[in-house]
């Protein structure tokens, strides 16, 4: 396996920097700053300190005995990213980027958000470090995730509802990039997923790698060997790449990314980028994209706002094409079923995003032997989704 990305930010044919010229120097400056600090002992120590003392890492690797029994196959472990401060893996990345922003002398940060988890994680670190924070969120998502909007405001961030296009994550990303173009001199963009132009996919992966690195150590301690399969949900793909990356060189570990099939991959309402998309350029990089014949990006759909995205990080596209990772779709209904099951068997309410991984893990584990091991990356907790699930149920599953 070759080292990716290369110096142009390419993961094979994927990645790169497809942005307006106005942003090019900002990206180059960011890349230089990141390369300067990423191995700097003071920088690394500060990030490690905050991950441990502020966010509560390492997160546990929990053996889900009752879920294992229910699935009736491989032993299932849960990597409890939901136990991070702010309730999801997103803070691993925002801590890293906020420390970097401070080193770069930036006083203002901006972020896009879908479900609101990355927005909350950005607002949180901005508060911690005394940075001014603006979060762009699709108007549709501000309705689906009112609680997170309020949390961000409590944390002192300004939430800007995005009224353009689909009014979801895709357009929140567009609007954040547009704002950045206009304010590039004093503003740092904390991008929340392993997507966008280089160096973001690499940098976000590096900050999320802590998930996979800890999992490796923890499973070796608990079982004395590596897992046979690792399962994670993919929207843009930050929790999945963080979990997968430390295992990429271990051929015996199956890497399974789970994307949102919404109301089904044979309908027009899904976010199954890998299953139904094809390579194209979208929001700064070459990767798989949901698009029509003419290259117009299609709106995505998922019950989970965090997976409701027609693109995916370029490293995932690379892992798919070199056949190192597999990507499978899970529907809204399957995810919801899995959410309930995990709640009842283990007393853990997962985020709707993570519930997609749980649903696939149940299928995969069932087909595995009892002495085999499967790890689910439980990327976030479900508190934020309770209201939208209630609504979904009340409407008989007709609307998310």
């Amino acid at each position, binding site marked *: 396996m070759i080292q990716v990305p290369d110096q142009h930010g390419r993961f094979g044919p994927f990645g790169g920097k*497809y*942005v*307006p010229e106005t942003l090019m120097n900002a990206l180059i400056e960011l890349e230089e700053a990141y390369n300067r600090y990423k191995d700097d002992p003071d920088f690394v120590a500060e990030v490690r300190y905050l991950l441990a003392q502020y966010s509560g890492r390492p997160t546990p690797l929990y053996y889900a005995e009752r879920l294992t029994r229910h699935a009736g196959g491989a032993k299932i472990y849960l990597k409890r990213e939901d136990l991070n401060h702010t309730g999801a893996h997103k803070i691993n990345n925002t801590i890293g980027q906020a420390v970097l922003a401070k080193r770069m002398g930036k006083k203002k940060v901006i972020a896009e958000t879908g479900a609101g988890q990355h927005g909350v994680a950005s607002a949180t670190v901005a508060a911690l470090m005394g940075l001014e924070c603006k979060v762009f969120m699709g108007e549709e998502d501000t309705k689906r995730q009112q609680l997170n909007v309020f949390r961000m405001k409590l944390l002192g961030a300004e939430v800007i509802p995005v009224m353009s296009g689909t009014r979801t994550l895709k357009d929140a990303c*567009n609007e954040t990039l*547009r704002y950045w173009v206009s304010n590039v001199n004093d503003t740092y963009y904390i991008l929340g997923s392993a997507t966008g132009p280089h160096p973001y996919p690499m940098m976000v992966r590096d900050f999320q790698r802590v998930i996979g690195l800890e999992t490796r150590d923890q499973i070796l301690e608990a079982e004395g060997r590596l897992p046979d399969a690792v399962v994670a949900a993919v929207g843009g793909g930050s929790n999945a790449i963080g979990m997968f990356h430390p295992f990429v060189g271990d051929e015996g570990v199956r890497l399974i990314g789970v994307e949102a099939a919404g109301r089904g991959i044979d309908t027009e309402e899904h976010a199954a980028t890998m299953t139904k998309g094809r390579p194209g350029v979208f929001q700064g990089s070459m990767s798989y994209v949901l698009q029509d*014949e003419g290259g117009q990006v299609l709106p995505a759909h998922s019950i989970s706002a965090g997976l409701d995205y027609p693109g995916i990080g370029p490293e995932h596209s690379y892992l798919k094409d070199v056949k190192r990772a597999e990507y499978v779709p899970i529907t809204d209904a399957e995810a919801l079923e899995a959410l309930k099951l995990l709640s009842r068997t283990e007393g853990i309410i997962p985020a709707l995003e993570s519930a997609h991984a749980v649903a696939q893990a149940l299928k995969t584990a069932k087909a595995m032997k009892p002495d085999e091991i499967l790890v689910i990356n439980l990327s976030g907790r479900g508190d934020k989704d309770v209201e939208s699930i209630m609504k979904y149920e009340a409407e008989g599953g007709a609307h998310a």
Partner: protein
Amino acid sequence: MSTVAQTNAIDAVFARLKESGETALIPFLTMGDPDLETSVALVQAAEQAGAHMIELGVPYSDPLADGPVIQRASERALRNRVSLLDCIEVASKARSRGVRMPFILFTYFNPALQLGLDRFFGLLKEHGFSGVIIPDLPMEEDGETREIAGKAGIHLIPLVAPTSEARVERIASRASGFVYCVSSLGVTGVRTSFHEGIEEFLATVRKAARVPICVGFGISSREQAEKFAGSCDGVIVGSAIVRKIEETLPLLSSAEQDRMDEGIAAVRSFIAELKPRVRG
């Protein structure tokens, strides 16, 4: 560097304007807003208003470099399912109605990529285009596109921004057609102030460029156009015209020919008003 056998029409226009001491007026129109037939008529009107060349904008679902005015125009055009091919065909339709000025296609990269770059440039040539602007294709990514464009004799016109700094030299020195200088940080759209140090920026571009330089992003009046006329070879006006079209939609979308003509005339006089006076 391959040289184009025939003279590109853009080069010919700039050579002529240099003689007459004029600054090129380059309007931008979103194709298919409100419909393709009207776009052909508006291209004709732009030439009658004194435009020297024109940018035909391809509507895109995710126009990152564009502000609200052009975003709305794109959304209107996409509702009519206007495709890249439709936009390209506007050029030959306008040509057959006697339009003589050079055509420049403005498109985000993905639609061109999905069509296939060879086919894309083949079609541009076939339909009489002289240049193409791809706002999300910086020089680091443009290798293959540049090569194919060169073979087809189409200028791949690059953008430079006030933030380009050390990149200005590299971008401007390898530019073909003209250098598109972004007047201010931000997306397209009408604005009252431009980047501080814009004159210095234009002087830097001028020094590095072997081709004409034009200024765009935010120019919305003749006063602004004239302000830049002394330090560049052309001004590009997009959002101001697209906004005028938006305001004129009730006329432009009318089924009655009289009202339609009235709408076209209104846009034509708006464009004519923008034209910088000949440098004295």
